[in-house]
């Protein structure tokens, strides 16, 4: 009986203490007609040795491509220490820190995380995580609508350059609460949201404006002008950011003259492996006055009976287990272990290390773009600088090119035709590429060589 410690004697003794004849008797309150379950379609149990072999075989099927895809999930070097400590039993197998005195490890770590995340965004406060970047955006919208007491409209302007995977989740989650999400069109030449696009909403009742910077195309938005416009028009500003960029790019707290009101995003680049999409974690930070509208857990520092400092969950009156139907969100379990990894990750690489990662990712992407745009049939789609992702336009269908690159062991980028944002999907000859600090010059050259060969073969075939 894997994972069950009972000996026959134990079971017998326990049943007799209970006064039951058999384990089955313990289920006698369940209506008899429910108690006949056929599990024959489930395979028989495997030993650890057997499952180990199976999983190794399955993993081998997936292979290991050289990754040049970004689009919301990024390959970064993760120090070996990060997951070795994160998976220590005391972190890995603990529950939510409801008994604070027996959870000071997790609680202090989360307090440190809140500090780091708030500072990275240059915002006042952070919560202890949401599910992922997409749900963080959805929660940010709901939070902004609650927090903007001046607005009645529940209307939120969303830059069309937002990560489209986030955008669809915002739909799923905000749909039932009368929220209206209005997409702003970007400028076709520059790939950023023109401040003019806002003009038509001047004076209208807008609860919030949401801007991603660097945006999905890797381009820098006019964050100062947009932020000031929003505040002038009594709208809150929701910033969506990649934490890596925040080491070297103006953080949300410094956007415009007053800074963004809420800043959120996905923490994956801070120590979470790409893992086919999860688990990652969503972060959300905000200005102090609206902290009581924040969803999710928050840890506070306090003192014990002896006046000694300690940490505990706080502001729980916002949460579902206290406030129930009036909670700021239904979230309960969050992504604690990923935050544990991120906190250790940030501690190990530090502010300079994170800046170096950002700089090298930027430089590698520039180098890659330079190499690729030398090839006949490849050009940059938008004018202007980018962070660590750039949109390229090919003279051939992107899907087929990516398939050929994959045969050569290269995950070549994200085909914008696959974007769930219909406007973005119109960029159907376009490819979003990303080269992080994990890539060597040889890797970049190998990609360019493969691209050259694929394009010339396709050309010949055509």
């Amino acid at each position, binding site marked *: 009986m894997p994972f069950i410690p009972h000996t026959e004697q134990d079971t017998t003794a326990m049943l007799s203490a209970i006064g039951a004849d058999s384990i089955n008797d313990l289920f006698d309150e369940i209506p008899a007609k429910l108690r006949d379950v056929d599990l024959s379609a489930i395979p028989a149990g495997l030993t650890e040795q057997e499952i180990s072999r199976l999983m190794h075989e399955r993993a081998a099927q997936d292979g290991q491509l050289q990754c040049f895809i970004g689009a919301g999930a990024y390959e970064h070097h993760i120090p070996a220490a990060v997951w070795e400590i994160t998976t220590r039993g005391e972190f890995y197998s603990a529950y939510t820190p409801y008994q604070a005195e027996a959870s000071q490890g997790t609680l202090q770590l989360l307090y440190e995380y809140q500090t780091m995340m708030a500072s990275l965004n240059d915002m006042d406060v952070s919560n202890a995580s949401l599910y992922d970047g997409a749900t963080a955006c959805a929660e940010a919208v709901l939070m902004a609508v609650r927090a903007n007491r001046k607005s009645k409209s529940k209307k939120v302007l969303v830059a069309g350059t937002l990560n489209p995977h986030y955008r669809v989740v915002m739909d799923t989650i905000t749909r039932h609460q009368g929220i209206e999400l209005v997409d702003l069109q970007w400028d076709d030449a520059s790939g950023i949201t023109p401040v003019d696009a806002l003009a038509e909403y001047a004076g209208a009742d807008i609860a919030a404006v949401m801007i991603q910077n660097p945006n999905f195309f890797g381009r820098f938005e006019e964050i100062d002008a947009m932020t000031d416009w929003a505040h002038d028009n009594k709208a809150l500003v929701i910033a969506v950011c990649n934490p890596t960029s925040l080491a070297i790019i103006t953080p949300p707290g410094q956007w415009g003259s007053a800074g963004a009101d809420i800043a959120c995003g996905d923490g994956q680049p801070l120590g979470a492996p790409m893992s086919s999409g*999860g688990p990652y974690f969503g972060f959300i930070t905000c200005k102090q006055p609206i902290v009581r509208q924040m969803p999710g857990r928050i840890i506070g520092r306090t003192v014990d009976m002896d006046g000694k400092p300690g940490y505990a969950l706080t502001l729980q009156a916002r949460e579902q287990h206290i406030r129930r139907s009036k909670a700021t969100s239904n979230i309960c379990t969050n992504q604690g272990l990923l935050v544990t990894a991120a906190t250790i990750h940030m501690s190990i690489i530090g502010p300079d290390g994170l800046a170096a990662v950002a700089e090298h990712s930027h430089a590698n992407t520039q180098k890659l773009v330079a190499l690729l745009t030398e090839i006949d049939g490849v050009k940059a789609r938008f004018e202007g600088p980018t962070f660590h992702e750039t949109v390229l336009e090919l003279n051939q269908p992107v899907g087929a090119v990516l398939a050929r690159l994959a045969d050569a062991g290269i995950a070549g980028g994200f085909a914008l035709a696959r974007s769930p944002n219909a406007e973005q999907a119109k960029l159907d000859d376009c490819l979003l590429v990303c080269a992080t600090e994990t890539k060597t010059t040889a890797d970049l050259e190998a990609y360019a060589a493969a691209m050259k060969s694929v394009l010339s073969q396709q050309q010949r075939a055509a």
Partner: protein
Amino acid sequence: MTIASNETPLIFEHSRAGRRAFAQAPERSAVGNIPAGLRRKDKPTLPEVSELQAVRHYTRLSQKNFSIDTQFYPLGSCTMKYNPRACNTLAMLPQFLGRHPLANDAHGQGVLSCLHDLQDILKEVTGMKGVALAPMAGAQGEFAGMAMIRAYHDARGDTARTEVLVPDAAHGTNPATAVMCGYKVREIPTDDQGDVDFEALKAAVGPQTAGIMLTNPSTLGVFERKILEISSLIHEVGGLLYYDGANLNAILGKCRPGDMGFDVIHMNLHKTFSTPHGGGGPGSGAVGVSERLLPFMPIPLVLKEDEKFRLATEKDRPQSIGRMSAFTGNVGVLLRAYIYARMLGKEGMVRVAEYATLNANYIMAELEKAGFDLAFPERRASHEFIVTLKRQSKESGATVTDFAKRLLDKGYHAPTTYFPLLVPECLLIEPTETEAKEDLDGFIQAMKDIQVEADSDIDQLRGAPYTMPVRRLDDVRAARQLDIKWLPEKGEAA
């Protein structure tokens, strides 16, 4: 012992400008073509420490936690059972970790096959017709479930249904979720046997009823005996039934929500399927549905076509409630659940429910013999049960909090306290199937010893815990004098 009992400075207090784990990141370099105006001028408050300092700090912090790997953790409703280490090791194989979520399906047949097989196993064991793995925790599974119920009614043009019924014993996520899905919540009382008050329920249902959210066994630790009647009643009025699967461990392989008549169910894979709780998460709230909700399942789903696996998209599933996460949900958690499910196998599933139930009933019987009051003394325990200290608290003044804190001193994590809200001074005790009789006996003895202390030395009890890194913390101060971020100017731990 000292190792962890000293006050641990914050990581920031180890920070010195210019210090760094130099092996871990490249040297700084030029910022290329990023205009100066877009660049950050200040340095964020990330710690500047050596690799050893970080390793030592977080290793020591970890030692301040209770966890399954170190303590018995009978936290009701949370199913703190052993998280097999192989699940972690195998889910972290480099090919799994290194795969980008937008890589093509051809280079993901391994991971997709695991997810597909997991969908199938969960279907069988819950008796549902379809399973979607997208939701990232129980509460998100609830959201997906209620959104499907709403989509179902909407698709039929049945838009007058505005109300969701929720028993008063329900977990807070249930009403919170119903509201997020645009419903009004109507609470249904519990009868004195812990079942839903059937008469009250009958009175509450009507054409406005979109559905009911139940967990069975309920958070009161008892099996809802009238479940088939409830199911008929709700269906008769056109409502649907939602099953909160947080307590699935109690019935795994013994009976199935699908057979009870539920239309949608979420599972907490981080409970029943033993993925670790990680000090707060991540979890996974996979959802299972009945025939009528199949079209509405969240995406992506893993489809199998010609022995190949692929992710279903909006095109495949036009009626889907949509996506719950940017990509494919908490894949790493799903892999752990899959590995665990395969190790259990069909024989193992039912043993989970059997021994979890045996353990709960055993502690319940022993505590009752020792003079503790049970919330529902005439009922079987499911995988958990409730002790109420109402009488004791009157007699001796000892509260549930006192018991909880004193248990920590004795090396046991406290059961869930003050939940469900309707039972006064309650402890919800869930031992799980992976604990051995002698550890249960140790816990029972600890409870008895604390009772003795409550009767003999209440001040001693009130001062607990004594052996943790901190003594009882001031929660009120935490909320009033909000200190939720370290500030350099605050200096040494205040």
